[in-house]
């Protein structure tokens, strides 16, 4: 058993046994060696299910929305990127800080489970990290009550420059408008409108999404290219300035739409128009589109 797992179980056991929290949210092993899956534990004797391994990619922050009616507290484990999701929910006033017990994990990085398909556990070391980890600047959570830091780091974590994450955006910007249109039309033609991207996103925390009201007249339930694009654009703009770049939307897309390229384009623009800003670092700095400053761009006036 690795040190992080050991520590996770120890702390979960204590918190549950003392009745300090009602639930602990962590990860457990799935059927396959490269599948790790969110786990919900509420009895001290169940903590043996909890694990940490190189495939604990899921951001657990969003699950806190399921426990807002709970009287007691919920403990959850967060990686650096996940912790920004907690700040997202706090700043959006979706959860109460005192009802959450945050156990941070200084994240060694996680691997891309899709690249492990068809391989055996002996191939572990050869499996690439999740793309987001290669740009990681914050393996240590930005908000926590306690932290597990074993000093471990997978090779490749944070080795790329943060600005390199815009490489794909820049490639697309260099194309002609028609080529760009074709590119996105082809991507969204595949979209199934399964809403996995929305449902895992900590910034998508509306109590009810307009796309769940298909008879509102604003959007159509037809699963066709243009309606799918309308969905993608609407969501991208709705999380503009609030996206914490956890990359979960793109990771979970069953048909591999490069959703983060859309989100990163917006982040790049926001940085250019409103100055550097990283969503989810704290709960005080207002998001660029959620506040007014006299120096904001106003060319249209």
């Amino acid at each position: 058993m690795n040190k992080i797992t050991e520590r996770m179980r120890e702390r979960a056991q204590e918190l549950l046994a003392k009745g300090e929290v009602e639930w602990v949210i962590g990860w457990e092993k799935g059927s396959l060696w490269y599948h790790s899956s969110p786990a919900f534990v509420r009895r001290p004797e169940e903590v043996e299910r909890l694990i940490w391994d190189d495939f604990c990619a899921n951001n657990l922050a969003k699950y806190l929305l399921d426990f807002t009616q709970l009287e007691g507290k919920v403990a959850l484990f967060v990686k650096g990127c996940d912790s920004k999701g907690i700040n997202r929910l706090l700043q959006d006033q979706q959860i109460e800080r005192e009802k959450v017990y945050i156990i941070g994990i200084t994240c060694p990085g996680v691997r891309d489970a899709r690249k492990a398909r068809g391989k055996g556990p002996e191939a572990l070391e050869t499996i690439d990290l999740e793309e987001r980890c290669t740009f990681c600047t914050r393996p240590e959570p930005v908000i926590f009550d306690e932290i597990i830091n074993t000093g471990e780091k997978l090779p490749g974590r944070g080795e790329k420059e943060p600005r390199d994450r815009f490489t794909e955006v820049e490639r697309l910007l260099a194309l002609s408008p028609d080529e760009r249109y074709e590119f996105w039309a082809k991507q969204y033609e595949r979209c199934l409108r399964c809403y996995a991207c929305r449902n895992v996103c900590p910034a998508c925390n509306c109590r009810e999404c307009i796309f769940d009201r298909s008879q509102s007249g604003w959007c159509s339930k037809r699963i066709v290219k243009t309606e799918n694009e309308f969905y993608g654009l609407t969501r991208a703009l709705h999380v503009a300035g609030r996206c914490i770049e956890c990359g979960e939307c793109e990771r979970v897309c069953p048909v591999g739409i490069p959703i983060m390229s859309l989100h990163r384009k917006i982040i790049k623009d926001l940085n250019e128009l409103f100055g550097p800003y990283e969503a989810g670092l704290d709960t005080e700095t207002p998001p660029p589109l959620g506040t007014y400053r006299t120096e904001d761009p106003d060319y249209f006036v």
Partner: protein
Amino acid sequence: MLKVKRDKLPQVLSVWSEEAVVYTPQEEDGVSTFRPWTGQAEVTFKPGSTVLPPKELFFPRTEEMYRYRVEGQAAFLEELSLPQQKCVLVGVRSCDARSLLLLDDVFLTKGYVDEFYRRRRENTLVVALACREALDTCFCTSLGVDPARAEGVDIQAWEKDDGYLLQATSERGKALLDKVGTLLTEVSEEPPAGARPSLEVDPEGVTEKLQRMFEHPFWDDLWHKCVGCAACTFLCPTCHCFDIQSENRGNEGFKFRCWDSCMFAEYTRMAGGHNPRPTRKERVRNRILHKLRYFPERYGKLGCVGCGRCLERCPVHMDITKIIQAIKEVALDG
């Protein structure tokens, strides 16, 4: 047994293309699905099933049903012509072949025949391809599917290193093979055994168990990790729920149907706002019950074919094999 050499396969497809659209598994941006073959010289079949199941060719994700327009006090309906296109679907795996039989039960039996589905089904011949290699997430044999021999298809094919063994399994399949007779050779080779998936579960008795479990606390814990998206149902080769809505453009409009999912809140929300499946708990329970209890109760067979798409592409790897196992382990009183 008949055999086609690997390099002759495009010629076979070319002959079939004269009278039908030939669909083969093709990959684009890492996502494989059945697409029209347009003369590619390289025809390869990657191990396992396609990311998107072939159900779309019979039951499209969005489909117009009829059009209407209003002129003054008069209303006019415009029927749309039913699908005419002949198709040959090449490279369907045994799990997906089974799924078509299950969809047939839904769309063609019990007193209602879906004309759109029926036309497409009748116009399509299916050439199945045995699995030489299973994916990590395959568990077809647990559902009684034979990876080396598909049910209800027109031709069964087996891949060998130098070509494909072919056997007609229906009259129409025989006619299809006759058309390309000059490209085939008679060989005395035996079809290879199918690949046995490593993932296994025994669903024996799960339906009966579930009949006594609707109110069981088992469901209280199961749903937590589900994020409530429809990746599982939309990728499932047997999920077949749809919604029917209309859209208007001025004085005219159309009715369409599109895929819908029991994982969505809107799916069961009634006029007035009441929702009999208000949380993910009830929705997850419904998905499991539909596959493993309601479907068998209505059609006498399980609604899962063991393709493994849901557990592979689920954002949180909800795993139906684990769920079946867990259901079997639940202790019931009496």
